[in-house]
Every structure is written in C-alpha cells, then in structure tokens.
C-alpha cells in the first residue's frame, strides 16, 4: 500500500461522508443550510442529552457502589466491551454498504489505486463514524473513573490514545468477515440473498460466541461469582473474556505503576496496528474478488403472450406504490437488513439474556413475576417498538434519492403516493404478528383472542408512529447519500422519528399504567390507546396531506 494515495482517499472519504466541503461552501456563501446543519446537530445533542444523563448517573452510581471494593475498574472493561461489540455488530452492515455498495466504487476502481488503498480509505471513513457510536458508551466510565481517582495528565493522554484505537480491532474483524463473505458469495444472480444470509450468520456467530464466552460453569454459579468477586483482576479477566483487548485497555488506565500501564497501552495499540495491517494485506487479495463481479442481467427468457398475461397486473395506484416500495426494500440487501430483518434480530438481541437464562433466572420465571395486564400492554408496546426499529418509513422518501424525480413526474397525486408508502409500512408491520405469536407459543400464556387484540392494537399504535416518520422525511428528505446505508444511517429523520416515537410510546405507556392504577379496566385502557392512536395518526396524516402537494412540487433533487 502506498501512503500518499491512501491519504488522498482518506481525505476524500472524510469530506464526502461528513459533508465538510458542503458545510464550508454553505458558510462561504452564507447559505442558510449552514445554520440548518448546525441546528440539526444541536437538536441531536439536546435530544440525546437526557438519555446520556441517565446513563452517566448509572455509571456514577455503579462506580460509587463498587468504590472501596477494588472492583470499580471493571466499569472501564464493561464500557470498552459494550463499545467494541457495538462497533462489531453495527459495523457489519456499515462496512458492507461502504465497501461494496457505495456509488463511487465503479469510479474509484477505474482510477490507479490498489485495492487496499480504496478499502483503507473507506475503512477510515467508517472508523470515524464509529467514534460517534462509541463515545457515549466509553467516555462516561473512563471520565467518571478518572475523576474519582484524580487521574493526572498521563491518565487523560492514555485515554485519548485508547479512544482513538478503540474501534480499530472490532472494525477490522467486521471488515475481514465481510470481505471473506463477499468474495465467497460473488456467485451470480443469487448473490444478494447469499450475502444477506451471510450477514445474519455473522451476527448469530457473534451472539453465540458471546454467550459461550460469558457462560458461568453449570451448577457452580455462586461459587464462581464469589471467587471472581474476591479478586479485582479475576472480575476484569472474566468480564473481558468476551473481548480480551478490553483487559489491556483497563490495565492501561488502572494498573499499578506507569510501566505496566505503558506496556498494556503498547500492547493494545500494537495489536490495533497489526489488525489494520492484516486487513490491508487481506484487502489486496480479497477486496476486488467480491467487488468486481459485474452487474448480472436476467436470463433473457422470451415472454410468451400467456406468460406476459400472468406477469402483467393492473393495480390501484396506492397498492402499486406500496408494492414498489416493498420490492425495493426486499431487493436492496442493506434495506432488507435494516428494515425487515431488524424485526427478527432486534427482539432476539433485546431478550437474548432472558432467553438464554442469564443470571440463572429463566424467562418463564421472569414472566411469572410480571402482572398479566402489564404483560399485555408490554405486548402492544413491543409492537410499537418494532415499528420504530424498522426505518422503512422514516427514510422512505430519502431512499428514492435522485429517483424522486420519477415520483414528482408520475400522475399519481402525492397524497396517494404517501398512502401507498404507509400501506407498505403496514405490510412490514404485519411481520411483527408472527413474532408475537411465537412469543406466545414459547413463553407467554396469551390466548388467541389476546394475540389478535395485541396485534390489532399494535397496528393502530403503529399509525401515528409511521405517519410521523413519513412526515419528517417529507419535510426534510436526504437525497445526497453515497451508499444505501447512508440513506438510513446518516438520515437524521430516522433518529428523530425514533426519538419522537419513543417519547410517544413512553408517555402512552406511563399514562396507561396510571389509568390501571386508578382502577380502570384493561379493556378501557386498550380502548383509549386505540382512540388516541387513531386520532393522533389521523391528525398527522391530515397535516401531511395538506403540505404534500407543495412539497412534491418544490423539492429539488
């Protein structure tokens, strides 16, 4: 790998990923979009501030609780592990999108760059994005610990270096896994499906490995826990089993004596450099194998009049829009993963510790402890939460990108197009019903009537969530993405829709519990949830329909 071209590509990726050039340009031109960008940044900070504050308090309390036991340094290990696992898990989809589906790849491949240089440039772009992901999880424990022990200059210097290196290793693993997957699956027309299955397989392997690494010895759980609690090093070593570099990180910040700290820092940074080197060597061998496969074309079968009759179907424009949305969602692997498969992965990830019986308590025992009425409301809330997790609607207009021109040109009124999009959101939401069914069969003693009622209420609850998401995307669509992942992950509408929806669900949940406490029956509470959802959804849709015609006319792609 040559450093100069690599550095040029890094600069390019930073400019286009974070839009620095555009920001500077808007500033020079005194364009109001400069302030718009700053405003959004401020809104994000304000939106996540309460959650961040709660997390900070939790870290502080945990550290206080552990103070004096000698075990408080384990919060750094935990922070490093959480951050690293996040980088690994979220990084898989991000890396696949940036390395293999970015718009500029054809262009870059035709330039005199080596595969490792192109991939290296993209890797650094993703790496910088990951700092934003890890910051809220890693900075608080280290800062709280540092303030408690009165860290000194070197502590903060080491922390800064560790922070810079923290996402390198997990992202190298994600990149290598993705590169191997893409080169092995570059096999003709079914490659997208194979790649999606591969992505899910990698995630399952990560989860299963995590489970086995953190499992307590069966039958001797208490003895084991007592054993590691007696020795701070033992607890760090046990916690760090999931991700051994987190042990070096902890020791680099907390070990007795600077010599030992320096050795651990060198070990961690050395392995990070080594990992990057391995990635570059792998990239030169594997990157183009998975990338240059050619755009496969269909078999070119001659369509007979009979077959044509079967294939061609006239549909209502709204249904037609909904079907178009679903087809694109399914056919672009990144969209399929983020919008549909997340509905399968998210519940598993959410309830994984319960499902595997972590902490020695099985999920059945947990469920027995919960009031059946709350469990029912939890089912409805879960439905709403799943609607929030899938960004199908909050990025629906943005995902069209430059092709939004077509939506502006076709003679389907914007309101009908938006209804089609909401319908597509509902088609995705229907996938939550089998999950609720499965939960009922496996763990929760819901009757068929309850499952139907939960599903109906869940679908009603989805209406304000979906229409709010779509309204946000209509108000400020993001069209200038470079790869499909950016259309979702760098789309602030997705984040705002999640925050807004979460606040609505939390408010509704809290109000429902208050009403139950006053003695109102569950039936009435359900009725009120349905009515509130319907009214709120209706109001948002009316606003959307009011502004849609002018938005469709005025949006410039």
């Amino acid at each position, binding site marked *: 790998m040559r450093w100069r071209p690599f550095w040029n590509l890094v600069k390019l990726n930073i400019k*286009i990923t974070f839009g620095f*050039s555009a920001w500077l340009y808007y500033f020079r031109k005194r364009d109001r979009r400069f302030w718009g960008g700053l405003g959004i940044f401020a809104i994000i900070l304000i939106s996540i501030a309460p959650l961040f504050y709660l997390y900070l308090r939790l870290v502080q309390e945990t550290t206080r609780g552990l103070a004096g036991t000698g075990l408080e340094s384990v919060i750094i290990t935990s922070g490093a592990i959480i951050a690293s696992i996040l980088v690994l898990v979220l990084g898989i989809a991000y890396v696949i999108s940036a390395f293999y589906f970015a718009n500029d790849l054809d262009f870059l491949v035709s330039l005199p760059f*080596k595969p490792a240089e192109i991939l290296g440039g993209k890797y650094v772009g993703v790496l910088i994005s990951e700092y934003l992901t890890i910051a809220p999880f890693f900075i608080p424990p280290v800062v709280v610990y540092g303030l408690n022990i009165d860290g000194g200059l070197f502590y903060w210097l080491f922390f800064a270096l560790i922070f810079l290196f923290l996402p390198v290793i997990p992202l190298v693993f994600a990149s290598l896994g993705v590169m191997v997957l893409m080169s092995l699956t570059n096999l003709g027309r079914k490659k997208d499906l194979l790649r999606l299955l591969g992505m899910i397989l990698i995630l399952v392997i990560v989860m299963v490995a995590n489970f086995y690494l953190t499992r307590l010895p069966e039958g001797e759980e208490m003895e084991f826990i007592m054993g590691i609690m007696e020795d701070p090093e033992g607890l760090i070593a046990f916690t760090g089993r999931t991700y051994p570099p987190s042990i070096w990180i902890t020791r680099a910040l907390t070990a007795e004596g600077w010599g030992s700290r320096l050795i651990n820092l060198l070990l961690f940074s050395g392995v990070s450099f080594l990992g990057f080197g391995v990635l570059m060597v792998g990239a030169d061998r594997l990157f183009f194998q998975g990338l240059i496969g050619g755009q496969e074309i269909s078999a070119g079968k001659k369509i007979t009049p009979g077959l044509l009759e079967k294939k061609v179907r006239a549909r209502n424009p709204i249904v037609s829009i909904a079907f178009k949305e679903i087809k694109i969602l399914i056919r672009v692997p990144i969209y399929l993963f983020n919008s549909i498969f997340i509905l399968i992965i998210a519940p598993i990830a959410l309830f994984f510790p319960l499902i595997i019986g972590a902490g020695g308590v099985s999920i059945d025992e947990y469920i027995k402890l919960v009031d059946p009425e709350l469990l029912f409301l939890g089912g409805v809330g879960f439905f709403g939460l799943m609607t929030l997790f899938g960004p199908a609607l909050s990025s629906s207009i943005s995902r069209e990108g430059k092709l939004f021109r077509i939506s502006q040109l076709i003679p389907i009124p914007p309101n009908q197009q938006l209804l089609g999009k909401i319908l597509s959101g509902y088609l995705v939401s229907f996938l939550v019903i089998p999950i609720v069914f499965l939960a009922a069969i496996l763990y929760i003693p819901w009757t068929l009537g309850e499952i139907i009622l939960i599903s109906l209420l869940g679908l009603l609850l989805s209406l304000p969530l979906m229409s709010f998401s779509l309204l946000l995307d209509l108000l400020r669509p993001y069209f200038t993405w470079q790869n499909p992942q950016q259309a979702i992950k760098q789309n602030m509408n997705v984040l705002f829709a999640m925050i807004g929806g979460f606040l609505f669900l939390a408010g509704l949940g809290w109000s429902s519990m208050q009403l139950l406490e006053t003695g109102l029956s569950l039936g009435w509470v359900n009725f009120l949830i349905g009515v509130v959802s319907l009214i709120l959804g209706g109001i948002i849709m009316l606003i959307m329909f009011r502004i849609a015609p002018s938005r469709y006319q005025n949006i410039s792609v």
Partner: protein
Amino acid sequence: MIKLIEIKGLSKSYNRGEIKAVADLDLNVKSGEIFGFLGPNGAGKTTTIKMMVGLLKPDKGSVSIGGFDIKESPIEVKKRIGFVPDQPEVYEKLTGIEYLDFMADAYGVSREDRLPRMEKLLETFQMENSVYDLIQSYSHGMRQKIILIGSLLHEPEVIIMDEPMTGLDPRSSHALKEMMKEKCEEGKVMFFSTHVLEVAEKFCHRVGIINKGKLIALGTLEELQKVAQRRSSLENIFLELTGS
C-alpha cells in the same frame, strides 16, 4: 504506429454462459487513432469498456493498454487511461475544484502541472465560473464536463469514453470534438462508444460495430462501405449490419 489498445479473445457471459455479453472480441487501436465503438442497445459496448478499464473481470481473453495487461498490471493500465463513464455520477458534496484536485492527486499530477491544465480545460469547457460550486448544483451536462476534465488532467495516452456526447450542449460538444482531434495529433488514442453515427462518421479514423456481443464489422468508413450492400452512409451500414 504503436498499438496502444490490444484486445485478444475477450469474452464475458452471464447466467452461467446463457447470455454472451461479449464473445471472442479481438481489437487493436493504434496511437493517433480516434476509434468509434458502435452497436445497438445491449450489444456489449459498455461491458467491453468496463472490462477495458478494470470494472469487470473477463471470463476469457486479455486487454492490454500501452503494453500493460489489465489483469497483470491494473495500476499501470489505469495510469495510462482517462475514463468517462456513461452516467455522470460524481461526488455531489464536493465542489468542482475539490473533485479535480482529487483526480489530480489520484493520478499523481504535480501542482505545477495541474494548474495550467485545469485552467485550459476549464476554459475550453466553460466551467471556470462554476468550478467553485458544489457539484450537486450542476446540470447533467456540467457534471459530464467536470468528469471529462478530471479524466484529462493527467494527459492519458488512451481516453476511453462511454457515450461522451450525451447531455453536452453544442458548444461543449464542439469543444470535445476539437480536443479529440488535438489529442490524436499528439499520438494519443480516443476510444469512444456512441449512438451519434454522424459524429462517428465525421471524426473516427476507424469504427467497430458490435452486435449481440460479437464484433461484426471493423475498419474505416470506406472499408465498411465495401462490406455492406447499401454503400452509403454509416447509418445505413449500421442498420444493415445490425439487422435493424
């Protein structure tokens, strides 16, 4: 004259060989030549070009540019070519000048060399006034021009263009044609695909016609006229040979 482009037995098929996009293509283009690559939609023009610039791996055969094989020495080949794709897709969030600077960096053009070249090309294609604007504000033709300028900054030996005239205004189109003549006088190769047969007829020293992945005609206009029954314009020859 030196063969700057040498294509031997180039083949590419899809669907496990069911569709032959390009079949056993042999082609040489010498220095100082303007070569027009013609064919109906889906004939294999873009597939061939993609294999020439390293965007697609051939199933069989070889492509050599300036004596370097694309498979063995891809970087050496890419250094010698300037490529203008059919779709003017480019970094929207960069300004024109930032894009050109990046291209100059990519090809290792020194600051001393890039400045006069940029000035000349920007003036030729009338982009001086918009080069500091974000590319997202450019029209289709302006994007086409900024890509074209970017591909010429390193003064490549071989310029490969896929439908370069699409979207260009008459003045820019004229400028491009003049530039093509100038470059070929310098001994460089212009290889371009086009549907504008009039351009091919007037400017190309030789043309190749590809249909269903096979090169069905190759030569100067006079040579092609001898092959076709209706010995008239390139349009008639094209229609006759491609069975349109």
